């Protein structure tokens, strides 16, 4: 894992200031159409691409929508595709690749990507399928003032320490429910399981196959840990996703949180929370099982892809525009909107959690074709355990059975 050099590389290359970008927008008069998620960092990248290359292009349109994941496969299937590029993350790249809707970028990188560092090129075997530009991961948020009030002077680093700290806070009568986590039934609870499962060293599938193996010692241990954490989360935790957990945190009603790094900047800014909350919130690595172990997180990147079903010239123009967008100036102007993987990035307090999690050796969200089916099965079946209706073994067996049924239908298992 070459994650340690990742953030250092960003800083060092910033010092070198080697950036002498010649803007080359590729074939002129082409149509550039981008589909992307809707958050500030993605807007910044597309804005930058538009500024650099919209004049050279015949058409530059963009669709920022939180529903991008839902529409992208349908939008890229016809020839010519509706969009020339989709900005994706680990899991959504898999979703597009499963249907063969994105093209290998090797020749485009050779032509327009001289400034793109090697580690940002997402390779599947020898094919470059995407270019990453920012990172995200779940990690620990702590309120140091409340921890100190409960007699804890070090930020918890393991799950046991988190649970012990929560217990101390409750015992001290400060808060009944000091922990917040995204445990909403569906994708969120599935992802929360993934975090703890990976921290326990679990593997989702038998290597090289689509056979599930989550009903294992690691799976049971992960569920037990999750339940121990949930004991200290608000009784409504099965309805909490990112917006709710961020709200609880900003209202000062939680002291320990496992939330997305991308929420860090929003929590630390001067909107939505009192000074007491923001000045005492510390972002640190996701907890591990044992001291120094694998942090319980999945690393995510966001990056751009180029559609397969578009003319080569349009693909070239789109790639050139987006490759040109990733400049140190763009990063500097939007420094706190994301954990950029690009040169020019100065990691601030909002990026500390993601950086520490990556450096601690957390693993990336698996880029496996059938992971979406597994994630969905976990999301639907695990709440029975968390709400106390089922044993861990039964919930995991149910999740495996639900996955196997879906995987057979999708053709992954026969």
């Amino acid at each position, binding site marked *: 894992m070459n994650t340690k050099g990742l953030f250092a590389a960003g800083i060092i290359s910033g010092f070198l200031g080697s950036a002498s970008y010649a803007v080359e927008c590729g074939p002129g008069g082409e149509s550039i159409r981008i589909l992307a998620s809707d958050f500030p960092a993605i807007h910044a990248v597309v804005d930058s691409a538009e500024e650099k290359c919209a004049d050279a292009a015949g058409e530059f349109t963009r669709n920022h929508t939180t529903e991008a994941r839902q529409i992208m496969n349908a939008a890229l299937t016809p020839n010519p595709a509706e969009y020339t590029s989709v900005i994706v993350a680990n899991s959504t790249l898999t979703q597009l*690749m499963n249907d063969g809707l994105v093209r290998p970028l090797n020749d485009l990188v050779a032509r327009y990507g001289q400034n793109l560092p090697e580690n940002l*090129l997402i390779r*599947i075997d020898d094919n470059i399928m995407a270019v990453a530009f920012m990172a995200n991961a779940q990690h620990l948020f702590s309120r140091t003032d409340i921890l100190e009030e409960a007699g804890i002077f070090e930020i918890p680093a393991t799950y046991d320490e988190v649970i012990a700290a929560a217990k101390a806070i409750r015992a001290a009568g400060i808060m009944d429910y000091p922990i917040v986590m995204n445990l909403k039934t569906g994708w969120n609870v599935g992802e929360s399981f993934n975090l703890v499962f990976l921290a326990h060293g679990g593997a989702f599938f038998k290597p090289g196959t689509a056979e599930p193996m989550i009903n294992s010692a690691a799976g049971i241990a992960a569920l037990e840990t999750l339940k121990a954490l949930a004991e200290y989360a608000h009784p*409504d935790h099965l309805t909490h996703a990112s917006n709710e957990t961020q709200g609880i945190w900003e209202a000062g009603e939680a002291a320990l949180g496992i939330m997305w790094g991308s929420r860090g900047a929003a929590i630390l800014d001067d909107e939505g929370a009192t000074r007491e909350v923001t000045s005492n919130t510390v972002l640190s690595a996701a907890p591990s099982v044992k001291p120094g172990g694998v942090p319980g997180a999945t690393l995510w990147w966001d990056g751009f892809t180029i559609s397969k079903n578009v003319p080569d010239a349009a693909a070239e123009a789109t790639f050139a525009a987006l490759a040109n967008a990733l400049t140190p100036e763009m990063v500097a102007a939007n420094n706190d909107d994301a954990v950029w993987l690009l040169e020019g990035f100065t990691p601030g307090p909002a990026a500390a959690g993601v950086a520490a999690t990556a450096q601690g050796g957390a693993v990336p969200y698996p880029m496996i074709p059938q992971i979406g089916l597994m994630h969905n099965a976990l999301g639907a079946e695990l709440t029975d355990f968390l709400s106390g209706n089922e044993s861990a073994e039964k919930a995991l067996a149910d999740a495996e059975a639900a996955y196997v049924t879906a995987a057979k239908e999708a053709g992954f298992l026969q």
Partner: protein
Amino acid sequence: MKHRTFFWFVLPTLTSMLLFIALPIVSVFVQSLFVEHEQVLVVSESCGPFGCTESTSIDIEATEKLREEKPLGQFNGFDTYINRSHLAVAEIGAAWADSATFGEFRRTVGDLPFYRALAFTLTYTAVVTPMVILLGMAIALGVNRLPGLIKGPSIFVSLLPFLVTPLVGSLILFWMVDGDGVIGATIQLIFDDPNLSLKASAPLTWTMLIVYGIWHTLPFSFITFYAGLQTVPGDVLEAARVDGATGWQSTIHVTVPHLMPLVAFVTLMLLMDNFRVFEPIVSFSAEAHARSLSWIIFNDLRESGNPLYGSAGATSILTIIGVIILLTPVLIRTWRDFNRKAH
């Protein structure tokens, strides 16, 4: 009417019914009989900002070839209908053989996704439908007696729940029942339990969804019955009064029988609507405790990245069959009434 004339008269209706109702259902049914091709997996190495890992990916060319040979996928017959996500025939058989008590058997079956959703869907339908009819009738009778001046405003206010989009209405209620919301906090105060949460317990979640369902569909039955009340013949009511019937007696023996065809109509509509309950589950984030058949379809199509069309199709067909079973008694009754009147 001559047969020929009749044929030309109904032709446009028949054509559009075929196009917009029959064909989509047939297409959904056909899709439910197929599953995807085998996905040819190859072991690959994936590298990115966080290093390299060994992974698998789909061999697009090989899979594409399979897909071109048979564009619909692999024929699976009714296997999707009987798999674990639907009727779960094998699982129920095993549960029957393995369970020591009936309670254990019921628990095992209740844990299977389809039956779990069916349990909520049926409960919801069985409670909401009669409640909406009874309350709607009561409100209509009450409003009908009001003096003219306040009648108009009362009708308008009674219709309000129907004017709110279901998704928005349930979201508003969802925030109100939160521990920090006005209803949730009041309930905590009444029961003197600061940790009481409507969202955390299954029975309370079901109650909340059912109360919401009644609140939201009440105006539909109210306004239908209110319109019907305007057609109750005044001379019959007067005759009843002359015969010495009390207000209550003439309501039960004259007004309500007059409204019976409307009751059948409202029941039909409500059964169909309630059996497809969906929006409140999503906006109340109630998936942990209550799932409906429509929610399963939504989940199959939306949440797994690459949608499970066959599975969603099978659940849709099963939902249609469920609606037909529920409607049959009402339809038979209407048919009998129709025949009786015709002769």
